[in-house]
């Protein structure tokens, strides 16, 4: 295919643009952002459309990106192309979604051939695929080589990247996914399903679950079979229980027959008892009068009669005793006589205790006063002694407010002054030693550098002079060397010139001789020419000789100059050289380093001397201060009786003064304390004396109250007792005597009252007993107790008869067993004539029935137990249905996953086989074409590319035959790009070999090419263009120039 012309109505930045492309190599040049890439995209879109899906009418993003800037309504254009067989077509497209259209016209036949092409599922016309034989992805991926596809090769593993790109182009037609990446994706898909050896993946898990459920199902089936066995056993037990129930029913029928016989016997016995009851009833009627006699009240009657007699006798005894006591009380009252106006009364306890308390308090106060008087005297003596001892010591209060602190400060200050003086002196000594040491250390350096003020300037001058001298020396040496070389050359030429001159001279002589012999004038011409040459060589010889002499002179002058430069040092040089010699340094740098040491040591010495001067002053001041202080302290300590002779005495004197002051302070404190005690005791003594006086007044008042009380109670004898205690004692005796007489009368009167009350109570009791006796007699309807006893005898006889009748009735009820006699009779009548009772008694039958019931009960329990076991079986595990359904679900899942796994594995195997075959098939052809291209581009530097069966790229290193499989580590980026370019060209050519040639769209792929390789590449492209069209888009003028060199047409985008 060859693209002849594009006409752009509107596409990105282009509108109403028409471009004609030449066959072969066509270069399109333009600065950046002038639409080269847009033009390339236009060609692709015109051929294949703008759909991103091959099966859906979905636009890719280019549709929006390439919207015309000026007029979006004119979105499209035409593209004319011709095929290798000569057919020519023009495709016209409108990309506007609203009016999208594609028309294809056959330009040779001049007709619309749109309908001849199939419409794809994405609504695109399939003409490009039909004409080129490749799809959109393959065309864009393979035939388009842009700088982007090269840039991402990178610097490392570039050939691996090239291999991958080749593989993707060969495998999928685009440059994104190769068979390898496809296999990786499918492997990941298998990983997501899970092979048998993978844990935690769906398929192995589904299989495990299926196996687990199968086991559970088998166990459940086994359990169900066991349950069936249990159910069968239960069924058998239920049948046995039914048989036992039938047997029990038969036994119960026999029991019913025996019961009928027993019922008839009971009827006969009951009838006999009924006759006996009727006889007793007749006798009871005869004693009917005594039927209601209260026989049960007889004990009550006897008790009432006894109680009445007893109450009457007690009343008579009480009345006799009462009369006797009244007589005795009358006599006692006569003896007591008349009573006092006020009753005798004891002295109030409050007054008496108050008097006692006051007396005791007064006694204690007096005792305390005696004690305090002794204490006051002792305190007065201690105060006097303290005043006396205090006067023996100096008065420290006039020395300082706090003498201890004062003396301590004095001693401390003096110690500080002494320590300061010692430290300053020690520091001065150390500084002196340091200065001496530094001065000694400076010794040699001072001798060396001491007289030089500006060493650094001198050194700089020295260095400059040395460099200049060296430069001059070098130049002179160089000049000398040049002169010697020229002289040597001249000397070397000299023998040659001599030889040539001699040879030519000899030849002239030969020619002249020959001329003279032969007369051949032509020999004269040759002899003349040879003579000229001989003259030339002779002249050269003379000139060379002169040159040698001149050069020898110049060499001598130059040698003199060199010697002069070497032998003409300046002052600075002499000084420094002298210093170098004295210091033993080899270089100026060493000398400068030594001078730096000197300067540093000198600075340190000066600093130490300054410090020492200051320290000398401070030490002197410290030494002068000590005598001044000592004199002042002597005066101060003399006031407290202490003397100081030397510096060492100050501290001891201060200690003694402090001890003396502490003694003074202690005595003063003791005198003060004694005075305070004395004053306190005196105040206490005064307070006690006042209290004694008050207490005495209170006692007198209380005594007066007590005497007045006794007098008012008629005890006039109190005036005869001075001591109040005696008076109170006498008053007490009299009160006690009167109180005893009065108590005896009171006791008698109380007894009389008690007996009177008792007599009234006994009279009431007698009346009550008489009333109760009368009521009992009236109840029985008899007049007295004798009549009562006679009637009671009849009543007892009646009761005996009635008891016999009641016993007979109870016997009857026992026989009837709660039934009615008539009902029993009717039952017996209903039973009718009875057959003989069955063998064995009722008891035997009952035991049999019980045994049958027990058997039924046991079987029922057994059946229940089996039923419980069935229920347990049912509850023990999951239901078969659930397991079966789970198993089916797990089997479905495992089956589906297995099918997915099979399909994936099948796809993988197929892809691997196909890709391997494909790669192996195209590799040799690609390698051959690409090797030729690479050899041409690199001008034979690299002539052989090797492609493995897996498309792995290698390069034969020229001259060695060695295959370099990682040439990017030794090759330049440009060469790697060229390898890739050669392979891409080869791929496009290979694609076009079997069908329609494919136009190549190159977008600036020469970023890393040098000029020579670019030129050769252009020649290559020009030659390839003869087979398939190459549209080269570039922004570089050097590319355009290279294209011009191969006569490629150039289209410039404005």
């Amino acid at each position, binding site marked *: 295919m060859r693209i002849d012309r594009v006409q752009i109505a509107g596409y990105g930045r282009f509108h109403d643009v028409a471009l004609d492309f030449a066959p072969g190599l066509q270069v399109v040049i333009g600065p950046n952002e002038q639409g080269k890439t847009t033009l390339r995209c236009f060609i692709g879109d015109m051929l294949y459309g703008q759909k991103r899906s091959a099966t859906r009418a979905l636009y890719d993003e280019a549709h929006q990106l390439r919207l015309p800037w000026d007029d979006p309504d004119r979105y499209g254009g035409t593209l004319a192309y011709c095929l290798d067989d000569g057919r020519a077509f023009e495709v016209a497209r409108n990309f506007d979604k609203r009016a999208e259209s594609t028309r294809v016209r056959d330009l040779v036949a001049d007709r619309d051939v749109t309908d001849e092409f199939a419409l*794809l599922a994405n609504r695109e016309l399939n003409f490009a695929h039909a004409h080129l034989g490749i799809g959109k992805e393959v065309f864009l991926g393979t035939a388009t080589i842009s700088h982007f596809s090269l840039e991402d090769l990178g610097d490392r593993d570039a050939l691996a990247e090239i291999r991958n790109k080749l593989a993707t182009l060969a495998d999928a037609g685009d440059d994104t996914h190769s*068979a390898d990446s496809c296999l990786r994706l499918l492997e990941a898909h298998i990983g997501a399903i899970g092979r048998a050896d993978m844990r935690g993946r769906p398929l192995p898990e589904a299989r495990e679950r299926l196996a687990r459920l199968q086991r559970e199902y088998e166990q459940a089936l086994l359990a169900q079979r066991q349950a069936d066995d249990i159910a069968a056993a239960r069924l058998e037990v239920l049948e046995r229980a039914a048989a036992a129930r039938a047997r029990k029913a038969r036994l119960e029928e026999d029991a019913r027959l025996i019961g009928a016989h027993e019922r008839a016997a009971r009827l006969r016995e009951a009838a006999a008892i009924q006759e006996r009851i009727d006889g007793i009833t007749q006798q009871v009627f005869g004693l009917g009068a005594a039927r209601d006699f209260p026989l049960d009240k007889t004990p009550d009657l006897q008790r009432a009669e006894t109680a009445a007699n007893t109450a009457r006798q007690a009343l008579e005894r009480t009345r006799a005793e009462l009369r006797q006591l009244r007589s005795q009380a009358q006599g006692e009252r006569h003896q007591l006589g008349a009573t006092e106006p006020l009753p005798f009364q004891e002295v109030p306890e409050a007054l008496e205790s108050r008097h006692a308390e006051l007396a005791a308090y007064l006694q204690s106060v007096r005792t305390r006063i005696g004690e305090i008087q002794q204490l006051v005297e002792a305190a007065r003596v201690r105060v006097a002694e303290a005043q006396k001892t205090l006067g023996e010591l100096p008065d420290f209060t006039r020395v300082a407010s706090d003498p201890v602190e004062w003396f301590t400060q004095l001693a401390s200050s003096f110690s500080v002054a002494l320590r300061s003086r010692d430290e300053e002196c020690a520091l001065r000594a150390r500084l002196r030693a340091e200065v001496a040491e530094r001065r000694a250390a400076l010794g040699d350096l001072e001798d060396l550098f001491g007289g030089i003020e500006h060493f650094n300037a001198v050194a700089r001058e020295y260095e400059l002079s040395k460099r200049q001298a060296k430069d001059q020396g070098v130049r002179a040496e160089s000049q000398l060397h040049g002169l010697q070389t020229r002289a040597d050359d001249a000397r070397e030429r000299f023998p040659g010139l001599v030889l040539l001159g001699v040879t030519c001279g000899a030849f002239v002589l030969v020619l002249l001789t020959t001329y003279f012999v032969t007369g051949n004038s032509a020999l004269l011409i040759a002899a003349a020419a040879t003579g000229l040459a001989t003259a030339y060589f002779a002249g050269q010889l003379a000139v060379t000789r002169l040159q040698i002499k001149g050069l020898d002179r110049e060499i001598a002058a130059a040698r003199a100059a060199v010697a002069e430069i070497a032998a003409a040092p300046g002052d600075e040089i002499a000084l420094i050289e002298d210093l170098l010699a004295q210091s033993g340094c080899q270089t100026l740098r060493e000398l400068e380093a030594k001078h730096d040491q000197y300067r540093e040591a000198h600075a340190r010495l000066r600093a130490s001397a300054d410090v020492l001067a200051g320290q000398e002053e401070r030490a002197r001041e410290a030494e002068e201060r000590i005598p001044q202080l000592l004199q002042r302290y002597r005066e101060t300590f003399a006031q407290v009786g202490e003397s100081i002779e030397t510096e060492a005495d100050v501290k001891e004197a201060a200690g003694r003064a402090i001890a003396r002051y502490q003694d003074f302070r202690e005595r003063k404190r003791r005198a003060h304390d004694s005075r305070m005690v004395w004053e306190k005791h005196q105040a206490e003594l005064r307070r006690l004396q006042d209290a004694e006086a008050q207490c005495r007044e209170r006692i007198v008042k209380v005594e007066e109250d007590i005497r007045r009380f006794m007098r008012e109670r008629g005890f006039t004898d109190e005036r005869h007792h001075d001591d109040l205690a005696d008076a109170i004692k006498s008053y007490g005796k009299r009160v006690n005597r009167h109180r005893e007489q009065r108590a005896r009368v009171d006791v008698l009167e109380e007894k009389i009252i008690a007996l009177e009350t008792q007599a009234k109570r006994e009279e009431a009791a007698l009346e009550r007993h008489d009333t109760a006796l009368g009521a009992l007699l009236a109840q029985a309807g008899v007049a007295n107790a004798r009549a009562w006893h006679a009637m009671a005898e009849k009543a007892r006889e009646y009761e005996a008869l009635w008891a016999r009748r009641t016993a007979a009735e109870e016997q009857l009820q026992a026989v009837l067993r709660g039934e009615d006699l008539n009902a029993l009779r009717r039952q017996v009548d209903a039973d009718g004539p009875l057959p003989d009772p069955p063998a064995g008694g009722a008891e035997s039958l009952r035991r049999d029935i019980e045994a049958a019931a027990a058997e039924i009960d046991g079987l029922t329990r057994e059946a229940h137990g089996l039923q419980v076991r069935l229920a347990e079986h049912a509850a023990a595990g999951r239901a078969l249905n659930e397991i079966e*359904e789970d198993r089916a679900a797990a089997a479905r899942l495992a089956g589906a996953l297995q099918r*997915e796994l099979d399909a994936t594995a099948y796809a993988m195997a197929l892809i691997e086989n196909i890709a391997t075959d494909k790669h192996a098939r195209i590799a040799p052809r690609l390698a051959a074409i690409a090797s030729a291209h690479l050899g041409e581009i690199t001008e034979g530097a690299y002539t052989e590319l090797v492609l493995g069966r897996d498309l792995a790229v290698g390069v034969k290193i020229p001259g060695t035959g060695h295959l370099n499989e990682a040439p990017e580590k030794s090759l330049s980026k440009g060469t790697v790009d060229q390898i890739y370019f050669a392979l891409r060209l080869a791929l496009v050519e290979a694609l076009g070999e079997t069908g329609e040639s494919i136009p190549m769209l190159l977008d600036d792929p020469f970023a890393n090419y040098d000029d020579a390789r670019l030129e050769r590449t252009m020649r290559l492209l020009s030659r390839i263009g003869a087979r398939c069209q190459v549209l080269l888009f570039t922004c570089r003028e050097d590319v355009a120039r290279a294209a011009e060199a191969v006569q490629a047409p150039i289209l410039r985008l404005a």
Partner: protein
Amino acid sequence: MRILHTGDIHLDASFADAALPPGLGARCRQSLRDVLAAMLHRAAAWPADAVLIAGDLFAHDRVTRDTVAFLRGAFESIAPIPVFIAPGDRDPFVPTSPYATEAWPANVHVFQRPAWHSHALCDVPLTVHGFAFDGPEPSNSPIGTLAAPRDGRAHVAVGHGSAREALPDGVRPAHPFAARDAAAPGLAYLALGHYPRVARVPGDFATVMYYAGAPEGHGFADTGPRHCLEVEIDPSCGAEAPAVTVRPVPSARLTYGETALDAGGLSGPEELSAALRALADVPDHPQVLRVRLRGACPPAVQRGLAAAQAAAASAFVHLDLIDETTLDAPFGEIAMEDTSLGAFVRRLGEEIKDAPDAARRAMLERARDLGVAAFRGESLPVRGPRDATP
């Protein structure tokens, strides 16, 4: 006289073959119980003079004591309406059957032998005849031996078996018989069981013969609505040929459905979700629905299947989504390319064409989809069953 006719309820049956997710089977079994209870409640409310259960009331090998207790309670709840049970091939009257081992309420009459047994009702002039399977197949066929006496009473019969004239496709026959043999003079109605759907046995007979079908489906094989039959017999038209009216009454609480959805036109999972939800907007849509997704769709749709299923699942008791889609790719065009991908598609296209069976074809198509998607750098989701029971 009114009769409620049902059968083939298959209580406690396994749903393992129904391809339902784990756990849903229990719900389906419970639904069967609910359906039976509802039918009995309806019989009591109508009221029916008798309830006829034409076999396969439960699955004999799976029935639980709990279900037997439920049946006792349910039948007792409608007493004194009599319930006649003719055991079938799935619940034969064998010694270990609950029919034999359990005590049933007084209003329940279970036919016990493979021979006609008659039971005359006291309150209405109706006599019910029936027979039982005593194994997977009856040891004796009573068909053709029934003689309904001319006693002025209406005679109906109940039994299990396959009338050859009405055998549906895919149903395994049990105790097959000819309808002509089953018809008997004086027999007004023959209530039959074994077929899954309501079916009248065709033929010009004096006896009306009906299959009531299962009152509720048992999986995706039993899609659509299900019924029980309300039968009214009017003896006033004459004891020899009383008028019989049969009315199917919808009974299923859980309906199953299966449909195919073309996902070819869908561009993403959102559209798929909308399409699935639209299936729920249909009146009386199945509660348990299986959707087979077909057509060629992009990988985005395939990747969104689970999300779309989850989004639409709430409208159903269970939504089963079977992915049978293929990759949306121009396989024909790809096959023309001279690339490894083209060769791969070509090769698989030929193999698919020559595939011996559907399973092999499905595997090859899936392999092709996976390979083409991988060549595009896309990974398709792993295809397998998905559970979407809300």
